[in-house]
């Protein structure tokens, strides 16, 4: 089934077409959501809602638009809503404190799993550090960075998803990386890992 065929059949409520759509784009949507929320379970949960939204609003989809662009948009918006509704970080907790709390929890977990060879503490702690640094980015920088790093989208593809100019995306990514660098350096100096 081609993309146009899937959309056409989906508009008449075909279930095989919906199944095909989910299979074709599951990785794209889950990856994007994961890049935004950094939790596999939450990412899959949000991704399921993305496909339900697609199923319900397929009649609004314009034939000249790109399906992937639309999916990225819904995935990004739903992830942002999820982040807004689940602000777990306390406003008085600094970035370093937050990383420290989470890496300590990992160390405790590692102590109980010492017989488990697949559990690599250092990588897990690095993941926590990077996730916290990405989570601390302003909204648009976070979106641009996620689409660039987790989905390898080009500047122009990100520009299309975010409805911005290519130069704005360039600037967002530049600022995002500068912010991340600052956080990673501070953490390195303080040996927070």
């Amino acid at each position, binding site marked *: 089934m081609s993309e146009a065929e899937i959309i056409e059949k989906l508009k008449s409520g075909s279930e095989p077409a919906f199944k095909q759509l989910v299979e074709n784009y599951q990785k794209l949507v889950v990856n994007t959501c994961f890049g935004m929320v950094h939790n596999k379970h939450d990412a*899959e949960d949000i991704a*399921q809602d993305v496909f*339900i939204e697609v199923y319900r609003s397929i009649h609004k989809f314009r034939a000249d638009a790109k399906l992937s662009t639309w999916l990225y948009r819904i995935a990004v918006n739903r992830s942002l809503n999820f982040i807004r509704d689940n602000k777990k970080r306390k406003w008085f907790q600094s970035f370093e404190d937050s990383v420290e709390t989470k890496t300590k929890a990992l160390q405790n977990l590692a102590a109980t799993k010492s017989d488990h060879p697949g559990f690599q503490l250092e*990588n897990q702690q*690095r993941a926590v550090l990077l996730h916290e640094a990405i989570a601390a980015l302003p909204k648009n920088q976070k979106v641009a960075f996620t689409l660039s790093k987790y989905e390898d989208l080009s500047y122009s593809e990100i520009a299309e998803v975010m409805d911005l100019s290519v130069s704005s995306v360039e600037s967002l990514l530049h600022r995002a990386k500068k912010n991340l*660098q600052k956080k*990673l350096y501070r953490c*390195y100096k303080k040996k927070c890992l």
Partner: protein
Amino acid sequence: MNCKTLHKELIFFLEGDLPLEKREQLEAHLNECPDCAAFAADMKKTLQVTEDEKSTEVNPFFYTRVKAKLENSETQHIGIFEKVFLRKVLQPVFFSILLIIGVYSGIKIGQPTPVNVFSSTQFDQETVPYLNEMETESIETFLME
């Protein structure tokens, strides 16, 4: 190049965003400064995280869950619809019926009913014919006189 400049440019170096000339300057500094080289190695490992996290395998139960969630939310949809219907339509209808019953019974109660007082005192008996007369006499005949 000094350490401070390197710290400002390092992430762009690691991400491959720098032009060749800049890249060579940074490489030169990293070769002669162990501190910066250690930081660069550390940051490289941290940035590698996103590469390792890109999912390559897909959850085989994903579609089943989407479908279950969709069907579940559709029944909930109907549930919400019923609730709205109940509140917006049935409830006003119920209260209107109650109001109509209320008004109707009010009219019924308000209407003069023939009072049977024959069995009471003598005084009452004298007034009864008069009351009965009023009741049987229609308003038209009353006006005609």
